[in-house]
């Protein structure tokens, strides 16, 4: 059998040296990352074949003919949730060995050669004929909202998604209620179709473009400039997959948490819980690792008065998967439940009273995991969690930012040459005693300095307040760089800088950090 899609990753398959970080890495090391045994599937099934380095060995054996495709290979191929934790952990190449892409390429090759999972054929047929994977009637997609006249034109489209429309209806209902309460100018597409995510995940990509084209045209007709979805799978599809599959659109795509984060920061809405509550948050893989949205959901949760957010042992980039993605839930239901049960255990270990997530599919998977492990921990999706706490607009608390933080932002904004040499897209996060902001390089000697923590920084810099005071008093960029280097190399108890590299060295060099480090006298 030939593997035309998988062999496109020939160099990755050769280069992977099987160091095992994707399988067994621990959190102590590696720049204080919170990695811990990243492969949620291998953590349940045990054998190396289920972790990325094992998958690489098996893929090589398939391509060489050492292994022949049979029922076991097919079953194995659909055990990967494509959660990307292995790739995020991998530092062997700038991007990491691209296991999720390789797994999806292999699945495409299997489907092309008629090595199929019957259930996936049913799902594909349902999407082609009924525009949803659940074999539900298309004309009843919006029934969950009851009798309501949706405007034909609006500035915001709420893209519901199949799982919220047919299976996790409460998420869709509460999202609409939330948008109503906030007073958003929004509508839904009367003829919304599946975003096609599941087709890409299980290697049945033929009809994907048709659904995308239909949805883009429908959105255009509404005149909307923003698409908001509460589904992490739909969000990733729109934000990442549609673009990489070659389609183009001119509207902005936001996850509901990003949309709410903006409104909260603009004082358009305030949330308050009646009594204090400790919650933890599960990062959906589609929202986090695949679309790099980690901080917005956290800011939204932390913005609720009386709510304390506590992190699980693995979180953000290295959060364990819920087990439902990549077609695993439909193919190997018990495996998905067990993975979810492991994640529930992690959530329980925080002492939180509620597990909040931001994806209907994760919500469903985690609830099933909770039942599987007989846990009492409630699993609640973001809109449902927020709805009871809406308080209206913020008319009181404005601009209570740390003055030193604001002074530093002002200083850096006025001295963009500090960042000369860094390539467009480079992101540095700044932390002064927990107050965060970041610098985004937008061009040569051009930067933006948003007063919020970066979603996905290259480097995190932590400053003592006295170090900042010393730096912002300097006039020239040369003096700044010199002082910056001195604070790092010869720190004192009061004046210091620490940094945390969030990317591997090679990737940092590609982004121009060599010049940055040289100017700062670090090298």
């Amino acid at each position: 059998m030939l593997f035309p899609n998988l062999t496109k990753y020939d160099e990755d398959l050769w280069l992977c040296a099987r160091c095992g970080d994707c399988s067994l890495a621990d959190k102590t090391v590696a720049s204080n990352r919170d990695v811990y045994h990243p492969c949620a599937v291998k953590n349940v099934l045990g054998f190396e074949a289920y972790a990325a380095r094992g998958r690489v060995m098996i893929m090589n054996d398939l391509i060489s003919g050492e292994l022949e495709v049979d029922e076991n290979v097919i079953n194995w191929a659909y055990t990967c949730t494509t959660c990307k934790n292995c790739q995020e952990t991998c530092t062997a190449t700038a991007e990491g060995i691209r296991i999720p892409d390789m797994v999806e390429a292999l699945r495409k090759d299997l489907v092309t050669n008629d090595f199929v999972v019957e259930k996936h054929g049913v799902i594909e047929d349902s999407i082609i004929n009924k525009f949803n994977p659940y074999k539900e009637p298309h004309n009843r997609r919006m029934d969950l909202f009851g009798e309501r006249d949706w405007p034909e034109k609006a500035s915001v489209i709420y893209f519901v998604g199949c799982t919220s429309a047919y299976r996790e209806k409460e998420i869709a209902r509460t999202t609409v209620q939330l948008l109503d309460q906030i007073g958003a100018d929004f509508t839904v597409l009367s003829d919304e179709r599946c975003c096609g995510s599941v087709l890409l995940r299980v290697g049945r990509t033929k009809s994907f473009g048709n659904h995308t084209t239909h949805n883009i045209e429908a959105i255009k007709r509404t005149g909307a400039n923003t698409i908001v979805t509460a589904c992490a799978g739909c969000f990733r599809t729109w934000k990442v997959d549609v673009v990489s599959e070659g389609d183009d659109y001119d509207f902005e795509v936001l996850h509901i948490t990003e949309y709410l984060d903006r409104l909260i920061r603009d004082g358009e809405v305030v949330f308050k819980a009646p009594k204090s509550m400790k919650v933890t948050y599960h990062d959906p893989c589609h929202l986090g690792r695949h679309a790099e949205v980690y901080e917005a959901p956290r800011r939204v949760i932390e913005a609720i008065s009386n709510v304390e957010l506590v992190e699980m042992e693995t979180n953000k980039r290295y959060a364990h998967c819920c087990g439902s993605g990549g077609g695993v839930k439909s193919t190997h239901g018990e495996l998905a439940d067990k993975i979810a049960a492991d994640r529930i255990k992690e959530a329980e270990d925080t002492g939180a009273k509620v597990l909040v997530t931001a994806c209907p599919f994760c919500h469903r998977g985690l609830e099933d995991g909770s039942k599987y492990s007989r846990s009492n921990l409630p699993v609640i999706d973001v809109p449902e969690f927020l709805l009871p706490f809406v308080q209206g607009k913020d008319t009181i608390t404005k601009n209570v930012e740390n003055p030193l933080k604001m002074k530093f932002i002002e200083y850096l904004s006025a001295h963009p040459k500090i960042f000369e040499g860094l390539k467009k897209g480079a992101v540095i996060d700044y932390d002064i005693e927990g107050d965060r902001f970041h610098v985004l390089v937008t061009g040569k000697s051009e930067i933006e300095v948003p007063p919020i923590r970066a979603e996905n920084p290259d480097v995190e810099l932590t400053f003592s307040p006295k170090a900042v005071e010393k730096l912002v008093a300097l006039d020239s960029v040369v003096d700044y760089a010199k002082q910056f280097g001195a604070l790092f190399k010869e720190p004192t108890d009061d004046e210091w800088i620490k940094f945390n590299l969030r990317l591997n060295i090679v990737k940092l060099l590609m982004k121009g950090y060599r010049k940055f480090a040289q100017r700062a006298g670090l090298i």
Partner: protein
Amino acid sequence: MIVVAIVKSSESHPLYKKLAAIVGEDRVNDNQVIISAYTKDASHLTAEKPGIVVMPETVEEVQAIVNLCSETKSPLVPAGGRNGICGACLPRVTQAVLLDMVKMDRIINIDEDVMTVTVEAGQRWAELIHRLDEKGYKLGFRGPYGGNAGTVGGSVSINSIGYAASKYGSSPDGVVSLEVVLANGEVIQTGTGWNKTAKLFARYSSFNDITGVFLGDAGTLGVKTKVTLKIYLRAEFITHADMGFKTLEEATAAFLEVQKRGFTEELILLADRQSTDTFFPGFLDSHKEIHAMFSAIVQETDEQLAARKIEIVREIALEHGGKDLGNFAAQMHWNELFNLVQPLFNNGFWLNTCHLRPITSLPEIMHKLWAIFDKHKMLENGIKWIASCLGADRAYMTGWITIFPPSKDKMELGLKIWNEMLDAIMETGGCPYWNGLLWENRSLEKVDKNFMDTYWTIKKALDPDNIFSPHVFEGVK
């Protein structure tokens, strides 16, 4: 809550049913899909495929598996994190039972009275460091550079060396006691463990050092199930220095003097500009005269002590013509513990020549290797290298001279160069710390007959049916 195996065992291995009876069906598998994932370590080297993979969770299960293999005279190969780079965990015979030990990863006891930690053999260095740190302790030897996945049992079985060896020596040097399952199924506890009512606190006690018999045995004499290691108080004060030199000879002389003092937790030398540029691109751009450098890391429980020691390191380096380069490389090196090697794969696939040598012999081997690199026009062919050397124990060092063929089509040339390098290393008195498929033939060419005969006598006495890792130390075909 057992999840039924998704890739089903083919049940063709003769021991399948009996192994499944010992560990349960979900922890044994002989399907070729599962087996495929155990056919390599982190090197390019290959041997025989395992016949079946078993994941024991307890010493009792290991005992039962060993007894089964003894009764049936079946080959048994224990494996740790399988990220070694010499092929040591790969079976030399077909149909071997491969023990994947990573499920045996519990910390059994942190004994604060006698400053030891006892772990199951499948415990990984990274997690152990992390757990000890939470309690206010550190290890001596911290683990090989691949310590994220590398296990304690695996490392001490192949004389692994790496982090903090400059002060504490290699992995076996940190061992106080071992629990080993012998070929007859009996369990032996070494060190002070000979006394069943005593703590595990010392390695050398009353009898001869049986611990040493099993260290570096490549799994040929028994299955290690627990390892007791020395621990130390966590030292919070860390100081760093990067020192550059115009010549490798100057760098080597300074390095030796620093290493002799035993001040540094880690002392690592980069032998030429190419090596520094591969590790830390741009680091020497503003130091055109510098050709070799070393980074020193001091770690102490007292701030002044840490500061003074690094000052002395600087003074020694300056006396040898060194130049102070700051401390960025040293900080990066130490902070990126277990995460330094992997990004090097951006340069290509790793062909290593890991070995030990006296510090003073470094210039000699490097001159030979530079001649090989020149002869094969390495850089013109896109093959980069790193010559890095870690100070070890009192006055020796590792020779980690590694080349990186950047693509598949350069592998043939890379392997040719690599073989010439291995020969040169042996000719100049280098001693591999591990053998595996990498070094074994070259080591056997040099080894004294009486030395090997003694080993084989021990092997025959402990494992008369030759079930443990058969054909290891016999040479690679």
